[in-house]
């Protein structure tokens, strides 16, 4: 904050303020002057007015004289003399007055002299007149008149002067009024402007001064804050001079003291302000600081002090700067107590370190001796870390001589080298990781490690302890110990493996073993024995009694008997009994044992086996056997019903078995003959025997059973067809041929029948085909000839025919043409077969186009219009669809109305299958509905079924040509496409043919 600037600027503002005051004074004086001048003008005006009035008085005065004269004359007042005297007096007063008023005006005064004279003459004339009147009443009139005219003349002169005077005064008044007016208007404006200007300057000055004051206050606050927050004691002293010797400073007065005084010295700033230096800081007087302050003030020099003081028994260090300032001195003291303390502490530390160093040297020597004397290898490694602070290597800081016999390294040579150079092996055998772990976890680690030197394996046990950022490793050769312990471990392992194997074996075989000391009734069971009982190994203490609780109640008697026998006769028999496990499961245990001598005692050593599965399996076998028996009877029934039998041939020993039904099929009783090949052959039809043998041989050689048939003659001499099927299988190391024989006589017969029928069908098909051929070619040929020759005759001899002949001829022609049309339509009808093999995708639009093409001539001829929606694609036979369209369209053209151009509308819509009649078998959910709507002659809807029948016509042959097959063809085509067609109509309006195709 630039205090100087503020100070300076405030000065300028004070100047400004002074100027403003001066201006104000000036304004006031100006205003006074103005007012005075105005007053003067006003006086002048008033004066003029007074003069004017006086003149007015004069006028009234002489006017009075005029009128008096008349009164005098009329009334002939006798007492006129006194009146004139009063009048004269009055005139005198007026003149005097006037004289006084115009004393400052030369020209007016000039007027007054003649006026005075005139007035005097007037008075005299008036007196004369009076005297005349008085002396001689009714005196000559002429004199009186003469006198009167003289008076009048005087009056006239007076009036003249008066008028001149009045004029002059009027001019004067005018002038003075103007002056007054000007004064009146200018004075206030000037005053106002000046006043405002002064006010403005005032405001600015005041504002600026106010701002400055604010700044100063801020600066003061800042300064105060600085003083209060600084760590230093800041005090300001003013000197107190000696009363006698004004040059001698006897003391300082504390003018300002900041808060630090309290913090460091326990002196409240407020309390010490205003007090003297000596009474506040008596201790400073003693150490000569006071003199230094005096010196600083006198010589106007900065002084530095650095001293310790004891305040409240506490030693404190202050570094003080004394700065002379204006008429006082500023003291700034820094509390350096802490710094001094630290310095002292450092010194102490140093001393202690030196001492420790000495001790360390001693220790080292001791250690060195120690390392030399011990058998361990002792090494110390320092960590080498990478950027991420992870340990990547070690530096060997120390290693004792014991390393030499092992690695043949010399300690001094490997010192300060990296472990990666000297002991690269530690990075592979896990030692490095151990060392790192010892450092990172700060816990000592002991590990064993092999060391290979010249192919000789040595084992070392090492302990790694963290020391600083490194690790101390103590290693000892344990090769021998290791060897011994390894052997022990191996032995142990082998034993445990054997044990496990034994235990596993027991589990696997579901066996357990026991040792039973009969005399003491103490038993030991193997773990698996316990498990067999559903218990954890050694879960309970075993005795005859405790074990007895596991025995199944039904077997208890037997068990007790056996136990007794063992105890008595020392004889053990193998036997099976049931137990109930802890979980409540029933198990069968087979047990056996023998007596042996153990520690001079006879004990039973035995084995139990869980034979539950075996027993259960036996039970199951029995059950399944029963089942099988049942199934066998069932099978026998099935064989009878299915006219079949089964056989089994053991190809290894050539024995065979056949089921009972085979006997029956051969019209024999079961087992009537021995099941040998020879016996079988007797039943085979002689014609098939060689084939039968061949087949059997082939089957036996190739080991594959190809089903075959052969005829059999039964015991009752009936010929039967048997079908043989089978397969090879191995059972109990013997190879078997399992097979089935089926009596297929009925099938063969049916087959033969079918074949016959098929042949018949083929023949009838061929016949039909040949009929087609006949119809298409052979039947048409003669007809065509007929037509040809008819036309030939017509050409050549037509004009020679009689009229009737021509008619007949025409009839022949018509008949032949009809016949021809009939044949060709029938052909078409018969050709629509229902085989679906030529179904392909048919674009109905293309089909319709083609049909329209084909019918183009007829369409044009009939002037017909055919309007079609876009049609879908369906699956069908192209030419059939075309035929369908042709027939429907040509129908519409044929049965056209006589008075309208035919119009056919083809409307397409995809509809749901439900729209079709119920009796139609729906092939698809959706159907294409295509309806052909024409405007032809139509028909009665009651005929809508009939029109689709072959040779059904609704019209006379002569009316409309047609064969009556066209719509039948349509129906057949639509049915062939799994569709549906129906028609409806109205006579005279038109008909609609609706075709559905599966979508």
């Amino acid at each position, binding site marked *: 904050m630039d205090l100087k600037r503020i100070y300076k600027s405030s000065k300028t503002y004070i100047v400004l303020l002074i100027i403003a005051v001066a201006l104000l004074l000036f304004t006031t004086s100006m205003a006074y002057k103005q007012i005075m001048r105005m007053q003067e003008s006003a006086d002048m005006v008033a004066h003029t007015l007074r003069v004017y009035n006086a003149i007015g008085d004069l006028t009234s005065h002489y006017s009075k004289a005029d009128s008096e004269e008349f009164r005098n004359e009329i009334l002939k007042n006798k007492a006129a003399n006194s009146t004139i005297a009063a009048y004269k007096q009055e005139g005198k007063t007026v003149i005097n007055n006037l004289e006084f008023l115009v004393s400052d005006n030369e020209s007016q005064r000039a007027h007054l002299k003649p006026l005075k004279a005139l007035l005097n003459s007037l008075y005299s004339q008036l007196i004369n007149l009076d005297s005349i009147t008085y002396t001689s009443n009714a005196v000559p009139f002429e004199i009186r008149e003469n006198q009167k005219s003289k008076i009048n003349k005087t009056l006239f002169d007076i009036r003249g002067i008066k008028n001149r005077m009045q004029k002059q005064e009027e001019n004067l008044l005018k002038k003075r009024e103007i002056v007054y007016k000007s004064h009146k208007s200018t004075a206030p404006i000037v005053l106002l402007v000046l006043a405002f200007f002064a006010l403005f300057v005032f405001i600015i000055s005041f504002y600026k001064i106010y701002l400055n004051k604010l700044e100063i206050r801020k600066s003061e606050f800042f300064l105060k804050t600085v003083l209060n927050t600084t760590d230093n004691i800041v005090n300001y002293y003013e000197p107190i001079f000696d009363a006698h010797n004004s040059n001698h400073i006897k003391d300082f007065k504390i003018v300002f003291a900041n808060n630090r005084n309290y913090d460091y010295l326990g002196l409240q700033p407020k309390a010490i302000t205003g007090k003297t230096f000596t009474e506040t800081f008596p201790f400073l007087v003693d150490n000569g600081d006071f003199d230094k302050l005096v010196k600083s003030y006198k010589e106007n020099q900065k002084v530095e002090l650095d001293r310790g003081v004891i305040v409240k028994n506490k030693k404190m260090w202050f570094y003080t700067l004394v700065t002379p300032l204006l008429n006082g001195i500023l003291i700034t003291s820094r509390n350096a107590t802490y710094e001094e303390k630290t310095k002292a502490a450092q010194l102490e530390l140093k001393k202690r370190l030196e001492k420790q160093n000495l001790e360390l040297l001693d220790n080292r020597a001791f250690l060195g001796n120690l390392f030399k004397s011990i058998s361990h290898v002792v090494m110390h490694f320092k960590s080498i870390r990478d950027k991420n602070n992870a340990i990547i290597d070690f530096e060997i800081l120390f290693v004792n001589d014991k390393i030499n016999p092992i690695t043949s390294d010399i300690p001094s040579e490997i010192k300060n080298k990296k472990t990666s150079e000297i002991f690269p092996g530690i990075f592979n055998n896990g030692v490095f990781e151990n060392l790192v772990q010892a450092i990172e976890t700060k816990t000592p680690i002991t590990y064993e490690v092999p060391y290979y030197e010249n192919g000789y394996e040595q084992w070392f046990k090492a302990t790694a302890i963290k020391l600083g950022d490194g690790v101390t490793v103590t290693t000892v050769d344990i090769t021998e110990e290791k060897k011994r312990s390894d052997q022990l471990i191996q032995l142990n392992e082998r034993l445990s493996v054997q044990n496990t194997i034994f235990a596993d074996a027991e589990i696997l075989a579901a066996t357990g073993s026991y040792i039973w000391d009969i005399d003491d009734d103490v038993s030991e069971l193997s773990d698996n024995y316990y498990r067999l009982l559903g218990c954890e190994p050694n879960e309970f203490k075993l005795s005859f009694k405790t074990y007895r609780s596991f025995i199944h109640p039904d077997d208890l008697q037997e068990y007790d008997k056996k136990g007794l026998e063992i105890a008595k006769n020392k004889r053990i028999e193998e036997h099976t009994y049931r137990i109930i496990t802890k979980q409540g499961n029933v198990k069968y245990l087979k047990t056996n044992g023998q007596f042996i001598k153990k520690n001079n005692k006879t004990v039973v050593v035995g084995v139990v086996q869980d034979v539950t599965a075996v027993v259960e399996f036996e039970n199951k076998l029995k059950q399944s056997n029963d089942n099988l028996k049942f199934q066998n009877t069932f099978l026998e029934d099935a064989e009878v019903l299915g006219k079949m039998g089964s056989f089994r041939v053991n190809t290894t020993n050539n024995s065979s078995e056949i089921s009972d039904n085979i006997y029956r099929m051969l019209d024999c009783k079961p087992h009537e003959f021995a099941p040998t090949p020879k016996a079988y052959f007797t039943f085979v039809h002689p014609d098939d025997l060689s084939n039968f043998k061949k087949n059997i041989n082939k089957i036996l050689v190739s080991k594959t059973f190809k089903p075959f048939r052969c005829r059999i003659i039964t015991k009752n001499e009936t010929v039967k067809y048997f079908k043989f099927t089978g397969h090879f299988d191995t059972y109990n190391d013997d190879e078997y041929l399992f097979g089935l024989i089926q009596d297929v006589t009925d099938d063969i017969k049916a087959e033969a029948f079918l074949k016959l029928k098929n042949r018949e069908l083929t023949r009838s098909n061929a016949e039909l085909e040949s009929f087609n051929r006949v119809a298409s070619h052979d039947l048409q040929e003669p007809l065509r000839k007929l037509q040809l020759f008819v036309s030939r005759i017509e050409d050549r001899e037509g004009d020679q025919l009689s009229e009737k002949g021509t008619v007949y001829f025409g009839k022949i022609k018509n008949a032949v043409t009809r016949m021809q049309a009939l044949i060709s339509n029938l052909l078409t009808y018969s050709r629509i077969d229902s085989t679906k093999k030529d179904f392909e995708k048919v674009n109905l639009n293309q089909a319709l*186009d083609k049909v329209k*093409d*084909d019918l*183009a001539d007829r369409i044009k001829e009939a002037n017909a219009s055919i309007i079609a929606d876009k049609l879908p694609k369906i699956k069908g036979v192209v030419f059939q669809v075309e035929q369908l369209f042709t027939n429907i369209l040509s129908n519409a053209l044929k049965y056209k109305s006589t008075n309208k151009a035919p119009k056919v509308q083809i409307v397409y819509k995809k509809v749901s299958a439900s729209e079709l009649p119920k009796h139609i078998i729906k092939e698809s959910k959706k159907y294409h509905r295509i309806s052909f709507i024409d405007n032809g002659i139509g028909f009665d809807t009651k005929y809508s079924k009939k029109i689709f029948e072959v040779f059904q016509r609704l019209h006379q042959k002569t009316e409309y040509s047609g064969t009556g097959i066209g719509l039948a063809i349509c129906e057949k085509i639509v049915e062939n496409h799994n569709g549906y067609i129906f028609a409806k109509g109205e006579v005279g309006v038109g008909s609609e043919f609706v075709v559905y195709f599966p979508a």
Partner: protein
Amino acid sequence: MKLFVKYDFDTLCKNFVSEHLDALDISYTIHSVNEVTVNGDLNDNKYKTLTTALQKYGIEILTNQKSTLVERIKHAIDCMLKDEKSKHLKLSSYLADTLNYSYTYLSTVFSENTYTSIENYAILRKVDLAKEFMCNTNLTLTEIAYRLNYSSVAHLSGQFKKTTGLTPSAFINIMKKKKQYKIQ
């Protein structure tokens, strides 16, 4: 293996004729496929050799003036059908203008020599072109109809059916099957 080839008979014949003329050392100018001007006279020997040489391949030297004219008419019709600019013209006036004969005369000569009329021939030729387009290009019927100056597909189809007895689609179908049939 079967290969399918397409010939341009014009070029084929032109090249063929010019090869033979070259072989006989005859100087010539070919005006159109059917018209060749020989510079100077041909001696009998050379003429005979040329005739026999060409006859072997079914090329005849026409001696009859009228036959020559018929060929020129046919050629003119070909040109007209193939030329974009002239296909809109009326056939009679086009022929008369090109060949400098009255149409009546041309018509008579043509009928006398070919058992058919110019118009019929033109239709046949047009249909023939249509057939070629149908077989050898991927053009649609609409495009073919436009190229051959038919007013509509229906018009083309109608004339096609009338001339060949087959609808265009039936024809295309047969030709397609024939191609497959041949491959088999």
